[in-house]
């Protein structure tokens, strides 16, 4: 190593050390539970899947979070007991990995001393975060961890610091089954679920428990699969009335494409993992007809709502694409935290937790949210219908 590099290295190390110490001195822990914030800024952490397998969802949520934070700061900041504070967003990547999510949570709570965490996008990364945030008494709002047991401890008691903005799998699967029975009047369905996520299997299970008709085939695929022809050929020979495909748009898009090209014309029904503008692009617009999915956020409903349409416009102006449901939920997650800070008149993490648990009739872009005893949002569910790649109709169920 040359002398020069040595000098640079030691300077960098010193700088880094100084920076870390500065970080410690800013947010002193008052000795009691939880984190407290400095005088003029509220730190909010984001533990998101910015790379790895779930990066598509993590990045969509990052966009929603950043939009919300910038908007709040532009309007002066969060009102903490009459004193306006700017939000400082600390964005960390959990690489879609369980172990990294847990260490990111530790960094955010002990090193960065954030007031609250938004994220992660997936249930598995979210569950990995729980021990660390509970120890630090910092609340976390996941925009999209939908597993029914996510907010609960093993014995059924609620996880004190765990919240979510989306609805849970049981609810969504049940509503999809009711929709298939009542609106589509399907007597024979095939289920084709993503078995690499709790999301896919959870929805499939809830659907099967509610659905009264005949489930003629129950098959699964894994995330990353691209060829569904073999299974779809077998569905075709069984004359199904509808196909239920709980999973994410990357694979469901391909399933739709391959089914339609094979001549399967029956309705294809899925969950909010499909609610992304890329779905019709992947499936091909012509193929994306007679498609239904349950979602917390509908662009059609949003267009009629002044609050949500403002969000849609801001999102489009900044990212040049229609807002996917993931971004809308992440946006709401940030505002849920802001709302909790303002109603509690405090930015202590413990107080925010109490505020989040008491959230009532919170007006988000994805509809009105009331957090129930199990930290699940009570919110309306919408079923969207897609024709030629465009949302052609929607059914709202309260």
């Amino acid at each position, binding site marked *: 190593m040359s002398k020069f590099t040595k000098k640079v290295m030691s300077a960098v190390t010193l700088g880094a050390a100084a920076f870390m110490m500065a970080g410690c001195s800013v947010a002193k822990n008052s000795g009691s539970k939880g984190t407290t914030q400095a005088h003029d800024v509220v730190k909010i952490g984001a533990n998101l899947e910015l790379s790895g397998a779930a990066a598509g969802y993590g990045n969509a949520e990052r966009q929603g979070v950043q939009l919300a934070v910038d908007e709040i700061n532009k309007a002066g900041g969060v009102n903490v007991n009459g004193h306006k504070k700017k939000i400082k967003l600390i964005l960390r990547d959990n690489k879609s990995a369980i172990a990294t999510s847990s260490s990111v949570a530790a960094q955010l709570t002990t090193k960065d001393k954030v007031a609250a965490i938004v994220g992660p996008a997936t249930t598995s990364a979210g569950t990995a975060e729980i021990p660390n945030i509970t120890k630090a008494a910092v609340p976390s709002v996941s925009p999209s961890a939908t597993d029914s047991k996510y907010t609960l401890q093993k014995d059924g008691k609620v996880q004190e610091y765990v919240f979510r903005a989306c609805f849970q799998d049981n609810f969504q699967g049940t509503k999809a089954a009711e929709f298939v029975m009542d609106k589509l009047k399907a007597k024979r369905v095939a289920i084709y679920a993503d078995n690499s996520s709790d999301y896919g299997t959870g929805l499939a299970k809830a659907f099967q428990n509610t659905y009264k008709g005949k489930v003629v085939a129950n098959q699964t695929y894994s995330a990353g699969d691209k060829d569904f022809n073999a299974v779809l050929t077998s569905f075709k020979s069984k004359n199904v009335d509808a196909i239920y495909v709980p999973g994410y748009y990357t694979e469901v898009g391909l399933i739709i494409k391959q089914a339609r090209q094979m001549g399967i014309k029956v309705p294809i029904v899925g969950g909010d993992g499909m609610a992304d503008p890329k779905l019709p692009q*992947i499936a091909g617009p012509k193929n994306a007809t007679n498609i239904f999915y349950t979602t917390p956020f509908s662009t059609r409903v949003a267009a009629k709502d002044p609050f949500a349409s403002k969000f849609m416009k801001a999102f489009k102006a900044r990212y040049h694409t229609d807002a996917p449901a993931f971004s809308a939920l992440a946006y709401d997650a940030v505002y849920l935290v802001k709302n909790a800070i303002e109603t509690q008149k405090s930015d202590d993490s413990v107080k925010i937790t109490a505020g989040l648990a008491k959230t009532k009739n919170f007006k988000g872009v994805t509809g009105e949210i009331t957090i129930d005893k199990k930290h699940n949002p009570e919110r309306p569910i919408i079923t969207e219908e897609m024709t030629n790649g465009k949302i052609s109709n929607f059914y709202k169920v309260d």
Partner: protein
Amino acid sequence: MQIVLQQIINALSLGSIYALLALGYSMVYGIIKLINFAHGDIYMLGAFCAYYVISLWHFNFITALLTAMIVSALAGVVIEYFAYRPLRKSPRIAVLITAIGVSFLLENGMSYLVGSNARSFPQVMEQVNYNIGGIVISNIQILILATALILMVLLQVIIKKTKMGRAMRAVSVDPDAAELVGVNVNHTISFTFALGSALAGAGGILIGMYYNQIDPLMGMTPGIKAFVAAVLGGIGSVPGASLGGFLIGILETFFQSIGLSAYKDAVVYFVLIVILLFLPAGIFGKNTKEKV
């Protein structure tokens, strides 16, 4: 009967992609005894290259295919030169670990550069379905099969009939002896990488067209399955790799069609274990005893 035939068509189009990928694994292994785990990611690079030339410069299928193959070939040669060549005399495990490192570099590098979202592949040609007695086959499926077969025959001709092919065979038997009789080992190995990677690149664009979707991690699973195909056919054997690819395609399709889709990947890896236990040389592999 119709369903059976339909499933056979599904199996063949899936199998031909595995076969194209397996050929690259097999060739590289045959020559430098390295399992090039970055091979699946070269296939991803080929798909992305085709994506860009088609959507930016509106290349047609043939020119896009050739560009993807050339770019992948270059990538293969560059990777060999920088990552594997310096380690030629080191233990095999070191090179193997490097290959895994290169694979991660390509996957995460591309995720960083282009984003990890899945994107739809531009339609180079309109899909037309032909209905022959209730069996649906699309022009793209025919194209995939035809391209794969042509490339396999071409590869066989290169290996068996050309001077470079002879050099490749010589190096695979004994690199030192080949060098003694005047074969440039480095060039031969580079050429092998170029050839194998070009095939992977071709697989990439075919997959892009067929499934209409690409992403930076698309090479992971097919890469591993193609590796199984290469082992099944007899790693190091070119006809073996083609056969192995088709067999894996058929196996997967069969298990999905009888309703055991949850086990389709498990079955492929189970086959790998069985082959390694009972027929380690594969179907076409030479069962040579190592002399001590």
